[in-house]
């Protein structure tokens, strides 16, 4: 471990350390903790939904509470669970994979996390303050503009704040990858996970501002009496749908592409083979990202945009199946003839292929505009997007956690528990969602809080709920695995999986400066090259010298707190003008922090050569 952390620290010191840290590895811990917490919360909401639907005309939840549940389940899972978990993994691993000592903007990295966290907490405060948002995670106008109470206001401000954090994360990763790659790490030698982080960041950069604008318009309409979506004053409700999906469709690729990167790295490592079709994989990633911006209106086939628009968007949507198919075949070909190890990380990856392919296939079915008129807003759609998001993104996150846990925390997750939780979750997942395709085809609409008896829907819903409970048990076992491992888990060596990429060339967990000497990269899978050529370790690209590290800062936390306070002010100034004080105070705090950041010099500090030499390898 590092010099500073060599001594045992008190609890308060640890908390302060995490509040002020700008180290990408610690920020990754925070993201994983925050995302994990919201994932459990979203999972609980999912279970409530399924329990309500376990039998016809159930009264476990009231209609209003059910609407809040589905809204918060979707919003939480997308914005507060899946994205932060992925951002956490990117933060932990991407700088290591390119041989960097930190990200380009460590301060911004911390700010991004705290904005996400405060945004998520703000959104969830709504549960205790008169009711959660209830207009669906898509918050379609005019339902969302007329929804009574403050629920939707919490949705607007919570997502606005956490969205700003995500945007910063995206810019940060982009600059890091462009300017901070180790010598020899050309673009076409980057591991696929780094590539997908890069492309995902481009998507974040160009997709999130559309959501920002959409949320502002909704906020102005709800809180300041503007008329964007108010038809009687010439407004147009469909504008929201366009803005939301111009963001929303790239968003699903923001979620899935990093998972693709994870699987690519895992398949190569555990098949002991170079990734098949590396160039095609990079190309397919970029093509998916590009097409991802061209298909948003396939969420709006039934709005009535006309046959020409529908046809164009239908064909563009189907085209995405081509690069995705390239990827599926490349993964299969990577394993073909390889020396395969099957462990928990590999099980999640193997299970991903058929699960995601089913989701992709129903995606092409939905892409057909004429057929979509039948499927629209039915459980068929629910089944489709859970197959791609759970079968793709969640499996990807869990695979990544098993794969990189030793690198991040220095301990290997328990294999027996890992396999058990995999099988329970995997079986539960298919039990829950496979049958929902048929429920949808039989006419069960989504978002209804009850269904009637003897419509042929009883058994299907029962099976689905049982599956959901199994998923819950599987998820719980994973949490137990984490606790068990942190107490009793075996200590991980630097390279537990016989890895191929740079992150496995340094200790687990890495010292806070990552690389004592920047490594020299001689090709794709740089560590594997050194292994096959008999050296077994990276060649340094520089002599041992002083390392420059950034200063920690509490400002990101305080700045985010300022926006959090201002958020409450904006929400409640509608009822009581005195709340404007909170708006000004909160914005004042945030802007003052920005000013301090701009005016104060942050030169960072140096770890001297002598200190590095003293440290044992």
């Amino acid at each position: 471990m590092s010099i500073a952390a060599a001594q045992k620290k008190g609890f308060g010191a640890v908390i302060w350390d995490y509040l002020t840290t700008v180290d990408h590895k610690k920020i990754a811990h925070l993201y994983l903790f925050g995302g994990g917490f919201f994932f459990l919360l979203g999972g609980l909401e999912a279970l409530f939904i399924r329990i309500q639907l376990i039998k016809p005309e159930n009264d476990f939840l009231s209609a209003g509470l059910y609407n809040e549940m589905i809204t918060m389940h979707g919003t939480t899972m997308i914005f507060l669970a899946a994205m932060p978990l992925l951002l956490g993994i990117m933060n932990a691993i991407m700088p290591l994979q390119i041989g960097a000592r930190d990200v380009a903007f460590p301060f911004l990295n911390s700010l991004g996390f705290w904005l996400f966290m405060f945004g998520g907490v703000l959104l969830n405060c709504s549960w205790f303050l008169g009711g959660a948002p209830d207009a669906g995670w898509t918050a379609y106008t005019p339902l969302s503009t007329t929804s009574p109470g403050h629920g939707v206001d919490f949705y607007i401000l919570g997502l606005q704040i956490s969205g700003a954090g995500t945007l910063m994360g995206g810019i940060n990763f982009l600059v890091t990858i462009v300017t901070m790659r180790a010598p020899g790490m050309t673009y076409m030698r980057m591991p696929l996970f780094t590539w997908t982080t890069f492309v995902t960041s481009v998507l974040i950069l160009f997709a999130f501002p559309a959501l920002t604008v959409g949320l502002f318009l909704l906020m102005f309409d709800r809180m300041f009496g503007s008329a964007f979506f108010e038809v009687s004053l010439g407004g147009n409700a469909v504008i929201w749908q366009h803005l939301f999906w111009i963001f929303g469709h790239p968003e699903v690729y923001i979620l899935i592409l990093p998972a693709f990167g994870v699987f690519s790295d895992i398949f190569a490592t555990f098949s002991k083979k170079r990734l098949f079709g590396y160039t095609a994989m990079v190309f397919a990633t970029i093509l998916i990202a590009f097409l991802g911006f061209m298909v948003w209106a396939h969420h709006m086939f039934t709005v009535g945009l006309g046959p020409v628009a529908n046809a164009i968007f239908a064909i563009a949507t189907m085209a995405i199946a081509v690069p995705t198919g390239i990827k599926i075949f490349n993964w299969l070909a990577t394993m073909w003839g390889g020396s395969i190890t099957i462990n928990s990380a590999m099980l999640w990856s193997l299970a991903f292929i058929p699960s995601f392919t089913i989701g992709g296939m129903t995606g092409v079915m939905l892409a057909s505009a004429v057929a979509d008129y039948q499927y629209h807003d039915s459980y068929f759609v629910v089944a489709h997007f859970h197959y791609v998001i759970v079968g793709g993104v969640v499996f990807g996150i869990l695979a990544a956690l098993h794969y990189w846990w030793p690198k991040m925390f220095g301990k290997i997750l328990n294999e027996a528990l890992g396999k058990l939780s995999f099988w329970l979750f995997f079986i539960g997942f298919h039990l829950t969602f496979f049958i929902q395709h048929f429920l949808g085809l039989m006419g069960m609409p989504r978002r209804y809080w009850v269904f009637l008896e003897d419509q042929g829907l009883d058994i299907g819903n029962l099976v689905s709920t049982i599956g959901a409970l199994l998923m819950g048990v599987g998820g719980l076992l994973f949490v137990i695995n984490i606790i068990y491992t942190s107490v009793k888990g075996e200590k991980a060596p630097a390279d537990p999986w016989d890895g191929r990429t740079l992150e496995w060339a340094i200790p687990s967990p890495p010292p806070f400066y990552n690389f004592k000497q920047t490594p020299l990269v001689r090709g794709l899978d740089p560590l594997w090259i050194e292994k096959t050529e008999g050296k077994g370790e990276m060649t340094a690209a520089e002599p041992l010298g002083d390392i420059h590290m950034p200063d920690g800062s509490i400002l990101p936390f305080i700045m985010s707190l300022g926006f959090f306070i201002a958020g409450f002010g904006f929400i409640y100034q509608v009822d009581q003008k005195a709340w404007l004080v909170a708006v000004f105070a909160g914005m004042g705090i945030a802007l003052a922090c920005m000013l301090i950041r701009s005016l104060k010099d942050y030169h960072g500090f140096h770890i001297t050569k002598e200190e590095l030499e003293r440290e044992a390898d």
Partner: protein
Amino acid sequence: MSHDHSLNPETMPQEPEKATLEGKNKFLGLWFFLGGETVLFASLFGTFLALRNSTADGPAGEEIFGLELVFLMTMLLLTSSLTSVYAMYHMKNNDFKKMQLWLGITAFLGIGFLACEIYEFYHYIHEYHFTFRSSAFGSAFYTLVGFHGGHVAFGLSWLIAIMVRNAKRGLNLYNAPKYYTFSLYWHFIDVVWVFIFTVVYLMGKVG
């Protein structure tokens, strides 16, 4: 190692804003940020274009826009972009005093622009009762133009803050990227205004 030495070299490099890794990162980061800003304004323009005829019996653009004032504003902002180029020219020649002078002129022109905009809004509200709440067109107009105005105000605060902060110590490799990224941002604001001038005012006036 002393920072004063590494950040204040004997002879300034050709491009002081990109001489350090931090500088390079800031330069590139701001470019990416402007990419995101482009989408932000594109979304606002799209909304405006969809709603620009939705006047709901309220005032229409044709009736209220006065091209004289808007032309003056355009000139102020375009000139301020030019003066910020001069400032960057002097930065590269390591002439700190002249750089501050030209940035001062830039700030002055920016304040002039903002004052005109505030007058313009005041005029619409009091003469024509054309507000944010009059119609969907009103909402879209004030949001688009107001977002731009907000960007100008933020840019001015940024500029004045770094000018005051560095007034006494002069140029070094730590603050050069701050000045340079400001100038990039300022050009972007200028480009957005060119589109606002065209799409909102010229198209609004001509039909």
